[in-house]
């Protein structure tokens, strides 16, 4: 006690050491108790990536590319994500959006794999190639694509020895039809609210004329 009152320097030193030890313990405990599993930023990037698992970026799947982006890889290597995906990644990482790297492919319309079943020989090569298990079949049995599960990565097209797989764009149906945004600043008949497309209500006589 006397030492402390007698020498303010050692008192200060002790106080600092004590505080340091205390906070060290708290931080040490927190680092164990509140440990984050995995890399949270990689998870966020992975959530933006389209999960096509196509490998066009040069990585075996979306998650590895997300981890590579964390490690400093450019964000413009994902053609299925397209410009919108790059924009979202740029927003998340607070970097400038850059145009899609054409080396890895171009943004294409979503398509799903389709197996021409009469040509299929049942080699199971496509089943092994599919990253999301969306192809059903067995050896020497015809295979087929579960189109709801297909991500359109086209990894199954190449391994097919008889070229019976093709990528087909999803057909527009009444169920998935939707309005498009009007073209701003253009006087287009399709832009009025109530009675769009006046010329299409014509009768057969008009069309013949």
């Amino acid at each position: 006690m006397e030492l402390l009152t007698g020498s303010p320097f050692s008192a200060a030193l002790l106080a600092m050491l004590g505080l340091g030890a205390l906070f060290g313990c708290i931080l040490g405990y927190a680092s164990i108790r509140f440990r984050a599993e995995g890399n949270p930023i990689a998870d966020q990037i992975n959530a933006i990536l389209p999960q096509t698992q196509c490998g066009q970026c040069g990585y075996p799947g979306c998650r590895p590319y997300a981890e590579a982006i964390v490690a400093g890889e450019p964000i413009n290597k994902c053609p299925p994500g397209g410009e919108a995906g790059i924009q979202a990644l740029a927003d998340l990482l607070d970097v400038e959006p850059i145009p899609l790297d054409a080396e890895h492919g171009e943004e294409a319309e979503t398509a799903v794999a389709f197996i021409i079943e009469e040509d299929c020989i049942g080699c199971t090569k496509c089943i092994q190639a599919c990253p999301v298990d969306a192809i059903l079949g067995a050896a020497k049995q015809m295979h087929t694509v579960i189109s709801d599960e297909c991500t359109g990565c086209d990894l199954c097209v190449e391994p097919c020895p008889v070229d019976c797989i093709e990528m087909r764009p999803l057909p527009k149906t009444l169920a998935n039809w939707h309005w498009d945004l009007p073209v701003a600043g253009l006087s287009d008949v399709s832009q009025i609210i109530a009675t769009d497309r006046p010329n299409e209500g014509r009768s057969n006589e008009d069309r013949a004329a």
Partner: protein
Amino acid sequence: MRRPHDFHGGIYPLERKELSNQREIRRAKISRQLVLPISQHIGPPAKVTVSTGDRVLGGQRLTDLSGLPVHAPTSGTITAIEDRPIPHVSGMLGRCIVLDTDGEDTWIDLDPVADYRGADPQKLIDRLFEAGIAGLGGAGFPAARKLPRAGGNGPETLIINGTECEPYITADDLLMREQAHRIVEGIDILAHIAEPKEVLIGIEDNKPEAIAAMKQAVGDRDHWEVVVFPTKYPSGGEKQLIEILTGKQVPSGGLPAHIGILCQNVGTAVAVRDAIVDGRPLVSRVTTVTGESATDRGNFDVLLGTPMRDLLEQADYQPTKPQRLVMGGPMMGFTMPSDECPIVKTTNCLLVPGKGELADPAAAQACIRCGMCAEACPAELLPQQLYWFARSKDLERLEEHHLFDCIECGACSYVCPSRIPLVQYYRASKAAVREHQAETMKAEQARERFEARQERMERLAAEKEAKRAARKRAAMAKAADKTDGEDPIKAAIERAQAKKAAQMAAGASANDDVEKRKKIEARLSKAREKLAADDGSDPTITAALQKAVATTEQKLAELPEPSAADSADSSGADAQRQKIEVRLSKAREKLAADDGSNPTVTAALEKAVATTEAKLDALAGKDEAVS
């Protein structure tokens, strides 16, 4: 008398109802061919159960009940089931059943409910579904789906919508004027099913004849009221009408049922009446034909599936060039891809405007932020903000600004001085948000499947690796065994030596055996003494002693007789020696008798003699080693 409330915003467009409400409802002629889209409502379509060539009668069900069913409006023959133009904003084709009518209009035997008041409400609801009743107001939601399920909480208030707020349309107006009693009968049935505390019939004040007819038909029913309120567009919107009549607002993203309200259209009430009282499915509806391109305008009771052109012809249709054909009113209707489209359950109006009747679309100008759209919006949204977000495709903020509460009434576009097609933006944005949600869900699913596959591959690889390691270990163990006895011959020699050593030790162990025997004999005699001394007072003790004696005797018997084994071994060796000696003498005799004619025989005999001698020597050596 209930005082109606008001809702935010709204507009007052030119009504022009007088164009079509001057004549009574006419019955439209039966067309030669009817085209019945299988999907005329909101929800999945049902499966078609008829096939081409089938003859059907009026009222016959053409689909199963996996969706809202479609019925034959009259008798005739099914000539095709194929994709035809349907009244849909996309202008795409849809699956239709094509019925060539025979003009006889023969019907199936209808099965009415004799006394609906005594009927089970759930049965009545099923009846309404089987009758194919979709809401006839315009949206086409299956009426039966809105009704409370048995055991569920019924609504407090049943609202009957006779508002008909959109310009031009007069179908509900005429229906109320002419068939008020049928409407009230339908409401009676709905009230019996839903058991509401009150029934409110809402009508705008621009339909005095309809109001009078309805008031007269309702009569003095308790807790029923015909509520009249000022005309304003879009007071006929479900949420707006609820607010006008009750002052309550349907919560954002909620349904009227959540605040205890059930809403049905007057046309639906008539369909309900027909389905229960007559047993007639929904096969016709009242449709307004109006617009300056039709001179004999009015309302028609028309069979579903009638091509629009046939109906227009009955209203003396004089098309201009180009001619627009709009299904619905000028605010919410949309242009038909073709006049071959059929009348469906939701076709409340066909509008064929003359030249200049509807404002031509003008070029959209820049938004000047005047705020008129926000004042007009009946859903109290911020249309201008939504417009900016829609243009920048900011889906998140669109949702934050309650895009999905937009009822697409078009009031904002109507008031916009810059003629911006605002509703078009909202429709597209709604689709974009839905699409984005679907994509996110699909990506999530793909991620899960990918990860599950990754995990499976890793597990399989690990299993393979484990198996390989196990095989490797087994192989190494085998190899180690081999190195221990590298040479089988050596191993055999070693085994022989070990055996010999054991035999050597047997001599020593013989002494042990003798000692063991002595011990056991001592134990045996002791046990026998104890058994003799036992007085038999405790049977268990006696039994234990007897058992001890028996086991000891057995052990003694098991012990080998050492001297006997030794003698057997040595006698075996002697026998062998004698045998070999006999064989040797025989071989020598043979060799002596051999005439040497065959050198190989001689050589073989000599070899036999030599080997036998060697064996004899080895045996002698062994004996020496033993001794």
